[in-house]
C-alpha cells in the first residue's frame, strides 16, 4: 500500500500534528515503507480467529458507581499552561 501526499496530509490532520507542505512527500514515503512492512500480515490465515482484546482471560473488576475523589480543582489545574479562575483557558472554539 502506497501512501500519497494527499493521504499523508489527511493523516497528519486526523492526528492533529501540523506538518509543513514541504515535509509531506518524505512523510508519505516513510508511512508507505512502514505499511509495506505490515503487509506481511496478509500472508497469515486468520479465518475464524477472534481478534484478541484482553491479554489475560480474567474478567475486569467492577467497582461501585460512586464518587471516590473530588474537590481537587487546584491540583487538577496546577500543570495547565493557561488556567484562569478555576478553568482551563483555550483559544476561541466556536465562531
Amino acid at each position, binding site marked *: 500500500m502506497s*501512501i500519497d501526499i494527499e493521504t499523508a496530509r489527511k493523516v497528519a490532520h486526523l492526528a492533529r500534528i501540523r506538518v509543513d507542505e514541504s515535509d509531506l512527500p518524505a512523510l508519505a514515503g516513510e508511512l508507505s515503507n512502514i505499511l509495506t512492512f*505490515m503487509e*506481511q*500480515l496478509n500472508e497469515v490465515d486468520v479465518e475464524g480467529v477472534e481478534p484478541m482484546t484482553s491479554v489475560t482471560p480474567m474478567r475486569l473488576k467492577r467497582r461501585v458507581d460512586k464518587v471516590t475523589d473530588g474537590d481537587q480543582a487546584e491540583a487538577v489545574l496546577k500543570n495547565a499552561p493557561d488556567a484562569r479562575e478555576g478553568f482551563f483557558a483555550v*483559544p476561541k472554539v466556536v465562531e
Partner: protein
Amino acid sequence: MSVNTLTIEAARDALKKGEITAVELTESCIAAMDAGDALNAFVHKTPEIAMEQARAADARLAQGDAPSLCGIPMGIKDLFCTKGVASQAASNILAGFRPEYESTVTAKLFGAGAVMIGKLNMDEFAMGSSNETSCYGAAVNPWKVDDRKLTAGGSSGGSAAAVAGDLCIAATGTDTGGSIRQPAAFTGIVGIKPTYGRVSRWGTIAFASSLDQAGPMTKSVRDAAIFLEAISGHDEKDSTSADLPVPDFEAALTGDIRGKKIGIPREYRMDGMSAEIEALWNKGTEMLRDAGAEVVDISLPHTKYALPAYYVIAPAEASSNLARYDGVRYGLRAPLEAGDGIVDMYEKTRALGFGKEVQRRVMVGTYVLSAGFYDAYYNRARKVRALIKRDFENVFAQGIDAILTPATPSPAFGLGEMASADPVEMYLNDVFTVTVNLAGLPGVSVPVGLDANGLPLGLQLIGRPWEEGDLLNHAYVLERAAGFVAKPSKWW
C-alpha cells in the same frame, strides 16, 4: 570497594547488620550519579528527597522495622509519575510537568523503604530501541569499544546505564516490546518484564496499554526477585492489574531445575543470525542441560509475524493514549498567532512537542485505526496476536516450563549508527522480545557472556503466565552457570 557497587541483596544485609547506614549508601550513590554525567543517565536529580528518605530508612532500620528495600537507592525511569518531581517521558510536550500524584509502582517502592536519587533517561514515550529519541539526548552505555560511544539500548536506556555504571543499586524500567530486556542485555545486567497485569500501570505514562508492563532492572537475578515482589500486586486504580496473591519470588530461587523442560524455538534461529549470538544461545542451552533440565526443540510458527503485528497494535494504542497531549491540561502549549483557533493550538503544540519518531507512530496509529483501514490493519493484527499467543499456549500445554532465546540480534551498536536507517531497521531490534509482550508473558534477560570486542550479550528466558518465581529460578541457574562478573571499565 565503594558501596554504590553493591547489589540489593548485599546492601540489604549490610544495612541490617549495621555495617553501613542508608545515609552513607545514598551519599555514595549520589556521588556516583554526579560523577556519571557523561553517561547522561539521570535527567532530573533528586538528592534532597533521597537524603530525607535515607534518614527515614535509617530510623526504620534502627527500630528493627525494615521492609525489603529499606534504604536502597534507586533510579526511576522518567515514565513514572513522581509527585512534585519532573516526569516527562523524555518528551518536550511534558516540559515542566510535575505530577500532583505518585504512580503505584513508585508508591510501592517508597512503601518498601526505597530511596529515589533521580529520574532516568529513556526514549521519548518509550518509543525507541537506542534511547536516541529522548528530548534529553541519548544515554550512553558504560561499556565501550575503542572511543566509540555505544547505545545503552532503549527505551529504558538510562535505567540500564545507571545500573551497569553503578550510579544506583537498581532501577525501574518499563517494557512494551523489549524496553527492559534489550537495554539489560546491552549493558550486562538483569531485566524482567513480568506477566501483563502483575504490576499496576497506574501513574505510569501510557504508551500501548495492552502491552506496557513495569519491571526491575538489577545487578542480579536475586535482586530482580526482591524488587519485583515489592512492586507486584493488585491495585484498584488499574482494573487490568491481577487480583492474585504475590508469591515470595526470592524463595523460588532454589537453583534446582532438574527435570524441567526448556523449549528452544526453531523460528528464533533467524536467517543471517550472527555466529556469536548463535554460539551464545547454544552455550546457554548446554548450561541448562547440565543443570539437569531437558532440552526440547519447539515450534512457535507465527513468530515471523510478531513484529508487523506489534507495529500495528502499539502505534494504534499510542495514537489513542497520546491524544491527551493537546496543550490544554499539562505540559507544553505552542506559541499562537492572532486568530489561531483551537485546532491550530492542537496541531502546533503536537508538532512542536512530539519528536519525529513519536509523530511517526501517532500518524501510523491514526492511519490503521481510520475508517476503511481498521479491519485490514488493526483487526487483522489483533487476530495474528491471538495466534501468537496460541503458539505459546500450545507449547506450555506440551509441558514446556521455560523457553530460551537470544535477547537481542546483536551487541550494543554505536550511537548515531542507525541515524540514516529506515525506521523499520530499528524496529528489528525487538525481534526476540516483542512476542512476549503480545502474548502477555513474563520474560527475563540474563547476561551470559561477552562478544569478541568485550561487549555483553544476554539470553532471554520466557515463562508461563504468573510463574515469575519459576522463571526467575531458571534465570538464577543460568546466571550461576554463566558466572558473568565482568564490569565496564570506568571511563566517565
